[in-house]
């Protein structure tokens, strides 16, 4: 003890356990914790995306050699001049808006009921509503074609009452109906979780203080469900805007969405440059919309685990 000098340096100059402790507290550990996910995103998202950006600026994609590439905005001009691409982009936007709105309208009451019910079937109900998650989307969507097709279930039923037939398959409503089905769980879960976080005695307290059911909902329940709603809206909107499988199977040639156009550019038309340009424009548009949404509505519900 007498040999100790009693400085701060002394205290930190410990044994092996001190070294380990310092390592655990150091900023390097945080880098280790983050790196697998960052690496994954970097390699499989950022790098491909850079390649797509590059392709969108070259006349002949993929370029033969990278050394003497001539940059051009020709692909963007072609996209801009083609009214068909622009109108598909606009249609895709509208499909995403409709899908998001209808999904919200359909899931909110269901989420509300499940969040506040005392029923012993509560978990079962929740499970039933997120069931779509667990079945392959291609198989499900093919099944829709049996319902909407020319001689499908809907037209058969209409035939029985001497109405119809109507054309549903390969129309925009068919795409919206299909997308609602696919993305419903993505709305239900955040809305349900923000509703179920609300202490029910808060609602009772509001009623005790003179609020009727409607006012209690407006003052207490609804505002506290908004983080979940905005999270659900954002997720469903972004996913349905860029949907590929559902519009491909239910929209057909005439009513595909923007992702289908990009797909056919690469796969069928061999026009990688224009396809890349459309992909870049689409991505920028999504980022802009997310930015605006975040700016004016707020996305805190997406990041905050507990409301």
């Amino acid at each position, binding site marked *: 003890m007498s040999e100790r000098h009693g400085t701060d340096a002394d205290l930190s100059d410990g044994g092996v356990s001190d070294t380990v402790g310092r390592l655990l507290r150091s900023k390097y550990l945080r880098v280790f914790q983050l790196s697998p996910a960052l690496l994954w995103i970097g390699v499989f998202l950022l790098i491909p995306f850079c390649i797509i950006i590059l392709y969108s600026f070259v006349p002949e994609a993929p370029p033969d050699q990278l050394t003497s590439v001539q940059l051009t905005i020709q692909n963007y001009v072609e996209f801009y001049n083609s009214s068909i691409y622009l109108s598909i982009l606009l249609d895709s936007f509208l499909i995403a808006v409709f899908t998001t709105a209808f999904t919200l309208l359909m899931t909110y009451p269901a989420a509300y009921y499940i969040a506040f019910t005392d029923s012993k079937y509560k978990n079962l109900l929740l499970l039933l509503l997120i069931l779509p998650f667990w079945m392959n989307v291609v198989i499900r969507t093919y099944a829709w074609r049996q319902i909407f097709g020319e001689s499908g279930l809907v037209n058969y039923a209409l035939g029985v009452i001497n109405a119809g037939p109507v054309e549903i398959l390969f129309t925009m409503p068919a795409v919206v109906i299909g997308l609602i089905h696919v993305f419903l769980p993505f709305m239900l879960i955040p809305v349900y979780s923000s509703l179920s976080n609300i*202490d029910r*005695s*808060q609602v*009772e*307290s*509001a*009623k*005790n*203080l*003179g*609020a*009727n059911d409607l*006012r209690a909902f407006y*003052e*207490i329940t609804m*505002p*506290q469900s908004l983080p979940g709603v905005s999270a659900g809206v954002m997720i469903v909107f972004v996913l349905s805007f860029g949907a590929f499988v559902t519009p491909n199977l239910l929209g057909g040639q005439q009513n595909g969405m923007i992702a289908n156009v990009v797909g056919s550019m690469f796969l069928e038309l061999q026009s990688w440059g224009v396809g890349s340009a459309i992909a870049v424009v689409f991505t920028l548009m999504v980022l802009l919309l997310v930015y605006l949404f975040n700016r004016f509505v707020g996305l805190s519900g997406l990041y905050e685990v507990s409301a």
Partner: protein
Amino acid sequence: MTSDTSDVIVALESIVKRFGDLTAVDDLSVQIKEGEFFSLLGPSGCGKTTTLRMIAGFETPTSGTVRINGQEMNDVPSYKRDTGMVFQGYALFPHKTVGENVGFGLKMQGVPEAERREKVSETLELVNLPGLEDRSPDELSGGQQQRVALARALAIEPSLLLLDEPLSNLDYKLRKELRFELKRIQRETGVTTVYVTHNQEEAMSLSDRILIMNDGHREQLGSPQRIYNRPKNRFIADFIGEANLFSGRVANRGDRTVDVELNGTVEERLTVPIEGTESDAEFEGEVALNVRPEHIDVTDNGFVSGEVVSMTYLGKSTRLLVDIDGKEVQVEVPNEGASIDEQQFEIGSTVGLSWDAGSCAVVPEGGDR
């Protein structure tokens, strides 16, 4: 006393509440008077919270009538009942400021904002939280949140304040502090208060009257002193404070006294005071005699003796557990005048005990009600 109904705020008339097969409240009748601090006390699951929730309007009685200010309330929704309730978990609105929380009831009443603001700041002052209007409830400590919840219930000046275990989420010291605070606020506002608790110490220190409930029915109703000193049965004697129950039998019934012969170990005949109002049947045959630990004296010439089994030093007193032929008796001996450094007693030593018959209570045996 009970026939005068002019100052009755709440009247429960034979209310029953069943949840499926479970009877939470079983044929309960009670009247709560203007300005009093009334406690519903009992172990968890005794139906006290259900009773409070029926007064607030969150539950509807299966049968019977709830009256507030003479009006039948069974079909009146909670938002039209003019009660202010404080919930166990406070139930503050986390997305609203403290000021908005406290002013919520006034807003629902359509009170204009300027007037509301004034009333809010007044009420926050009453609960000792002046100037906290713009804070978020999350930023407050548990004790402060509790005060905000109280202020929110009081801001509408309800004819009835309902408190559902409001202190149970707080630590011991804070709980004691807020207990005095609650009493002060209740006195200042004069609001009729119904307080639900399982904590007998809280009920005793706060209440004008206590209703002890067990298994959905009424065990005893009375002042804290009455309940402590004249428990009606073994359950109450045990539940309120600490009890030493000796079994015995009534030898002779006087006008205001009974002579009790203690069985077995303590062979003594005591003349114990009783109320004149109780029915004769309760004081015949087998009874129990309750003696509180602080009423037992340790003396050389006690009429019973036993061995000290354990000893706990409590500061102002020492708690002894004395074994009298297999029956353990709790004794609390004041430390006043005792030696500062030395123990008064030793474990294993034999001590004599005695008590004054006047401080005993006869507890009817048999019928639990």
